[in-house]
């Protein structure tokens, strides 16, 4: 019935599912960026490097300490988050009273330094990381590796939990209030600077978690983050800077669109997201889910 451009529906389902899997990575990364931008007003360019550190963290935990993937899934994001919080306390904090641009420049510089250090130590071609869930299930229309299925479920859970905490709980309401009027919230006796530090740590931890999830599927290399971060920024811009739901929905949605492009016109698959970004910016400059200030 719905044979599309010569692609049978079965193959189409397969590609839609693959798009969702890729979208899961976009969603988790853009969610972290959106949280950080929403609450700190910092455009965190270190995000890609922190994603890469998450993946390398998993590799190091396995190779130096013998901790398997499942342990790394918790430990690596924690370690990277702590490093992130140190960066926030010592460096980022000094820039809050300045224009966005300074935070962007600082985090961009940090990303270059971190990547350079990893490249110096581990080379550019990457390191092997074994798949913790080998094998897969034949769904009839495609072969779904167990690990990829796990990635989609894990990322959906994490994304929805984050959205719930920020939009529906008391803690989330403090956070949102602190973004609007930090001085007032502080007057009510809430430690705003600490909240900001923890929020940054959380956003960074999300990036690192995505990195750990990426380690068995993609090449663990120092440049894995910088290749992805530009796309993720486009996702955030399309979704609307700072919008939590926007980041999640556009992350998954663009994953699917990119996946379909890989079938119909593979040459354009690396550009399609930017084309969409340009169109969205022209039609709705604040992004699909953003509100114009």
């Amino acid at each position: 019935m719905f044979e599309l451009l010569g692609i049978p529906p079965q193959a189409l389902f397969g590609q839609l599912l693959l798009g969702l899997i890729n979208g899961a990575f976009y969603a988790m990364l853009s969610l972290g960026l959106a949280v950080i931008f929403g609450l700190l007003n910092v455009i965190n360019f270190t995000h890609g490097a922190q994603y890469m550190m998450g993946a390398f963290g998993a590799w190091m935990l396995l190779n130096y300490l013998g901790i398997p993937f499942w342990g790394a899934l918790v430990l690596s994001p924690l370690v990277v988050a702590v490093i992130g919080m140190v960066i926030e306390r010592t460096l980022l904090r000094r820039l809050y009273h300045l224009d966005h641009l300074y935070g962007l420049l600082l985090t961009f510089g940090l990303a270059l330094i971190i990547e350079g250090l990893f490249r110096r130590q581990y080379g550019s071609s990457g390191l092997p990381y074994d798949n913790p869930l080998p094998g897969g299930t034949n769904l009839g229309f495609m072969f779904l590796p167990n690990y990829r299925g796990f990635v989609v479920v894990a990322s959906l859970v994490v994304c929805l939990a984050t959205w719930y905490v920020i939009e529906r709980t008391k803690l989330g309401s403090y956070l949102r209030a602190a973004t609007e009027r930090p001085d007032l919230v502080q007057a009510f006796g809430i430690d705003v600077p600490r909240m900001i530090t923890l929020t940054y740590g959380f956003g960074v931890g999300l990036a690192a978690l995505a990195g750990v999830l990426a380690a068995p599927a993609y090449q663990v290399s120092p440049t894995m983050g910088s290749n992805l971060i530009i796309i993720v920024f486009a996702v955030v811009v399309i979704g609307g800077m700072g919008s939590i739901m926007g980041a999640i929905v556009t992350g998954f949605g663009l994953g699917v669109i990119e996946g379909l492009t890989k079938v119909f016109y593979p040459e354009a698959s690396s550009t399609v997201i930017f084309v969409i970004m340009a169109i969205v910016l022209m039609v709705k400059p604040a992004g699909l889910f953003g509100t114009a200030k």
Partner: protein
Amino acid sequence: MRLAAIFLAASCLAGAGAAYAADPIPVKIGVLNDQSSLYADLGGQGSVWAAKKAIEDFGAAAKGLKVDVIFADHQNKADVGTSVARQWYDVDGVDAIVDTPNSGVALAVSGVTKEKNKVFINSGAATSDLTGKACTPNTVHWTYDTWALANGTGKAIVKTGGNTWFFLTADYAFGHALERDTEAVVVANGGKVLGKVRVPLNNADFSSFLLQAQSSKAKIIGLANAGGDTINSIKQAAEYGIVAGGQNLAGLLIFLTDVHSLGLKTAQGLNLTAAWYWDQTDANRKFADEFAKANGGKRPTMVQAGVYSGVLHYLKAVEALKSAKDGAAVVAEMKKIPTDDPLFGKGEVRADGRHIHPMYLYQVKTPAESKGPWDYYTLKATIPANEAFRPLSESDCPLVKKG
């Protein structure tokens, strides 16, 4: 500048005759490659080291040459590559550019080199067009090319029954050339190409493409890509059960560093064609040991070995001519004298600029067979020098047709 010229003139007058033998011939070599991204490990600083090592082993100083080496990162962008090349040739007095992986950048730099009448000794790039329709009197292609890779891996696989192919092709000059040359070999040997998909460079996720390859039912999935792209495709093919499902992967260009990055567990059993492997002869091992000492324990790739061998031959030509200034003359001299060095053995540089030497078919060892890091290949077959590269009779290089 003018002051320098006066000094130069003065020294010429003062030294007339006596200083003739003592004045070293200045030579400046620029290593232009990927220093920071997906091809940095297979060339990068290792190639810079190899160039310096060649100068040292050549005994340049004792032979009256004063050779300097500089390097730059072309970031895999043809525009960056050409602007560095122009800057080097016009301002910095560079006489020869070496290495330069990434076929797109290499073709661009080859053009600039011809325009400025300098020398381009390419080791890292793959496209056979460098000595084919885009050949120039100033370019020598040293280590390997897409024709040789296709002729090695492609032919071997078709002959053992892999007669239906699906290509995953990196969407730029290199991938297109590798796909074209391999397809020609497959078809010539009675095989058939069932489909192909062009994938943007530096793509992280290959699942969609692998699924397309899977549903094509081709026996062989040809990976016409390199570096990180190859690593990600092989890694993800294992995840999607491609090989378990009865299809086989053909990595058409696999470097030692790729195997290192994949790990033997994933890479075992892959067949590949290469020009050089460190653990093959005593001379290679000696070079590799010295390389490892200076490069944090890594073993050199064929690209880095090619830079060494190419620079050595270049210096011989410069020594014979006593000048590095006329690029076309130096390359003509490189074609005239036979090549002979510890790593690539005896050979020649052909009229089209192609360096001729044997190529080798290797298979990647299983984890049980390997004695440790970097012990990765078993030699399966040697392709003799006269069969390894595109014969001149099939060449579309204008230099050949004239001669």
